[in-house]
């Protein structure tokens, strides 16, 4: 099972604060940080979706 330690929007630990604003922001933009290791991900936004790749933990997509 994957442990989501970090916030995909701001990169801080999930346990550090409420991240309410981050959750709102993530409705309007892809995650920039890997939730497992906090590495900045390589993000490509497409007209109808997005992909976000962590060099260690693989690729997330909007679908």
């Amino acid at each position: 099972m994957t442990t989501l330690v970090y916030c995909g929007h701001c990169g801080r630990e999930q346990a550090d604060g409420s991240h309410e604003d981050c959750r709102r922001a993530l409705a309007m933009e892809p995650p920039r940080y890997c939730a497992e290791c906090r590495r900045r991900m390589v993000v490509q936004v497409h007209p109808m979706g997005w992909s976000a790749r962590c060099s260690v933990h693989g690729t997330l997509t909007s679908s």
Partner: protein
Amino acid sequence: MGDILDVAREQVLEQGTGLTQEQLVEVLNTPDDRLEELLALAHDVRVKWCGEEVEVEGIISLKTGGCPEDCHFCSQSGQFTSPVRSVWLNIPELVEAAKETAKTGATEFCIVAAVRGPDQRLMSQVKAGIEAINAEVEINIACSLGMLTQEQVDELKAMGVHRYNHNLESARSYFGDVVTTHSFEERWETCLMVKESGMELCCGGLVGMGETLEQRAELAAQLAELEPHEVPLNFLNPRPGTPFGDMEIMGGKDALRTIAAFRLAMPRTVLRYAGGRELTLGDLGTREGLLGGINAVIVGNYLTTLGRPATADLDLLAELKMPVKELQKTL
């Protein structure tokens, strides 16, 4: 001088002559209780001088991040501590994005790169991308690759680029507060070269970046002077890590007044909703803007942020009985 909306009715709606910078300041100061009247007038102007149709476009970032310029609103500048990483899109993904865009009924697909201006590698990638798209997708191709030399303008024209985007970003008098790594005049020069080449010029800007209403009117007047085919209107979406990252989101009513003012400045241009409308206007404001001077939309996502689902915009256009412009009418 008479009431500005009466003046606009005669000057813009009846005669098709855009308002001056001074008149636009008055429009931008329209009180809330006359906003509905202002939007209705701007819509009448749009329908009379542009028609009922709405132009739909999709955009894609071919080269993201790592830009040497310091546009203070942009998360793709390499000068700020933005979380956006540099990445290039490959040709198959570019073609796929063009196909997705065409499926929405869009007639325009804009290829964008975060650069000061294109180098040979980027020009080669653009050329290969355009050839690959043309082989599989029926859509007009636009580009936004920063500042150009005359040689590059000629190359893009020869590649079949239909429209070139290069925004003024902000009024000349405020530009230095937004960008310091290049000048307003450099941008203006590229716009003139694009126009002279015969490519359609797409040139707009951002509002809500701390400029005064006078400077907002100035931007509209300077755009009108350029006479672009299309004006994309962006509302600041404050991006983390950029100098404008902590700015307030522009109020919805101010955004609607701006839309109407831009329409009254440029009665015949394609006035496009671009980035930031989801935050500034929301669903209700998006509808009001379409009934207040807008006649084009970017559907789907933007370059680094997400837009409304394309279906939401297309459903809204259907509900408003605004037909989507078809491809053959733009060729």
